[in-house]
């Protein structure tokens, strides 16, 4: 093969790797019954593609080619090992007699992979790491840098999770209809945690981490395509609507800009419109839940020309609905800030003080900064200062700290 042909094939294989490697992996895990064996087979299959494909001779269905090549490579390597380890021989015999793979099984494989990586028997940290590694194809190093931990920590989480899948026999299958609602909740929660880590990093020097949000949205799109349940669509809508404001959430110097100070011309209209349309789809199902309601709230903001031009009455109404679906103090806090916009700061402050008095959000920096904001607007400088200081003591993220320090300097 000429060099030029080699380059062209390399480009083709790389493209197939980008678009199809995760799907091939998902099927190989089912066929081989083991994550590590499947990953090895995936690598071998792509290495074989580089050697065997040539311009004009690329298989008509590259994915099927890669699956069957990967499977043969795995059986080969098991056979070699079987010479030393008798327990492998039976596995080889089993694999040899496996029937061909129907196409609809293959599309379910990606869902199987998602549900297995997000199995509730795995710890949440491991669910996220495993999903990013296996479903999104991120490297251990990429995951580690996204979560600001060391690669060895992430690698260990993944190794332990795979060991539990094997040892406790977590099956590679779709949940039954009875299990689905609870299992889907876990999957959505994992995707949302990944998104949130990207949207508002819990520590570090920047406000947002676009890479993680992008992965979460990709996962959301994939899931919505495979399993278009109302809450899946609602979560995707929520992520798109939040994402549409990304450019306006930080100033050129990297500082945090709150909703009412954001330059709305920087909002991404295309993402917001797509998100709003998905909200409508989910709402019309009549089976929506907390993600869809949050998305509906975000959609009202996205469609408002200015803070003053926002329909706060509708937003408070949506928060009432959300409080029924998810009666948590954080939701109550957000509702209180919406009430402050509708009925004035005094009304909002009364609600926040009730929540804090119940002792729920004493350690939550946003509760104190929201309280500080309302005190400031009411001209209660000493109270505002004390609340800003409390919030500052509770937050580690640099831009958020700078924001609070700036506010503090303004009132002192």
């Amino acid at each position, binding site marked *: 093969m000429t060099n030029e042909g080699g380059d062209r094939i390399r480009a083709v294989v790389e493209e197939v790797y980008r678009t199809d490697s995760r799907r091939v992996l998902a099927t190989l895990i089912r066929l081989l019954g083991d994550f590590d064996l499947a990953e090895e087979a995936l690598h071998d299959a792509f290495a074989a593609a580089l050697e065997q494909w040539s311009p004009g001779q690329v298989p008509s269905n590259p994915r099927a080619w890669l699956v069957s090549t990967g499977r043969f490579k795995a059986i080969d390597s098991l056979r070699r090992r079987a010479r030393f380890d008798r327990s492998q021989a039976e596995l080889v015999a089993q694999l040899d007699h496996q029937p061909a793979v129907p196409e609809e099984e293959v599309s379910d494989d990606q869902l199987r992979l998602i549900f297995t990586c997000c199995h509730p*028997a795995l710890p949440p940290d491991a669910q996220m790491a495993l999903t990013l590694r296996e479903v999104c194809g991120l490297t251990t190093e990429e995951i580690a840098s996204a979560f600001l931990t060391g690669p060895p920590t992430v690698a260990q989480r993944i190794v332990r999770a795979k060991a539990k899948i094997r040892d406790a026999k*977590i099956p590679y299958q779709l949940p039954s209809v009875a299990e689905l609602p609870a299992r889907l909740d876990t999957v959505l929660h994992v995707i949302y945690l990944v998104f949130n880590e990207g949207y508002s990093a819990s520590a570090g020097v920047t406000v947002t981490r676009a890479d993680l949000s992008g992965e979460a949205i990709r996962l959301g799109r994939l899931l919505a395509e495979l399993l278009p349940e109302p809450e899946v669509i609602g979560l995707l809508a929520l992520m798109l609507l939040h994402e549409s404001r990304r450019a306006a959430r930080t100033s050129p110097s990297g500082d945090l800009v709150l909703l009412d100070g954001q330059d709305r011309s920087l909002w991404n209209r295309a993402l917001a419109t797509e998100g709003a349309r998905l909200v409508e789809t989910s709402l019309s199902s009549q089976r929506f839940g907390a993600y869809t309601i949050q998305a509906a709230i975000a959609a009202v903001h996205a469609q408002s020309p200015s803070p003053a031009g926002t329909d706060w009455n509708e937003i408070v109404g949506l928060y009432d609905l959300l409080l029924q679906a998810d009666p948590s103090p954080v939701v109550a806090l957000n509702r209180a800030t919406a009430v402050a916009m509708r009925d004035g700061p005094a009304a909002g402050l009364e609600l926040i003080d009730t929540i804090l008095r119940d002792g729920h959000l004493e350690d939550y920096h946003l509760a104190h900064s929201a309280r500080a904001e309302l005190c400031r607007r009411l001209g209660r400088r000493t109270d505002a200062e004390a609340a800003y200081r409390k919030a500052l003591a509770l937050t580690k993220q640099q831009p958020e700290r700078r924001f609070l320090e700036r506010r503090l300097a303004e009132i002192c």
Partner: protein
Amino acid sequence: MKYLCLIYSDETLWPKLPKAETDAMMSEYMSFSADIQKSGHFVAANRLQPTPAATTIRIRNGKLSTTDGPFAETKEQLGGYYLVEARDLNEAIQIAARIPGARIGSIEVRPIALTPAAADQR
């Protein structure tokens, strides 16, 4: 594959419950056991005496030490177990969720480790 379902709860709670409630619970346990015997998931089950009846032993430097009480003082104590045969963890979880004690305490589901010889026979 076999899973041991360990039933944990606050053992001081049980004597405080009204008799009608404990009777109802016992009959639920009986019908649950009968159900999983019929479905072929049942391998073994036992209720344990409360932890004051427990004795913990250790051998250190060849010397036997015997102490009164459970291995560890915890809020919830091991009160009994079911050993079940299940296809995989999902099925084991489904079975364990039907153990009446899951509503007042918690059930720990532990896969039984296979000996190399048993693994070979599978």
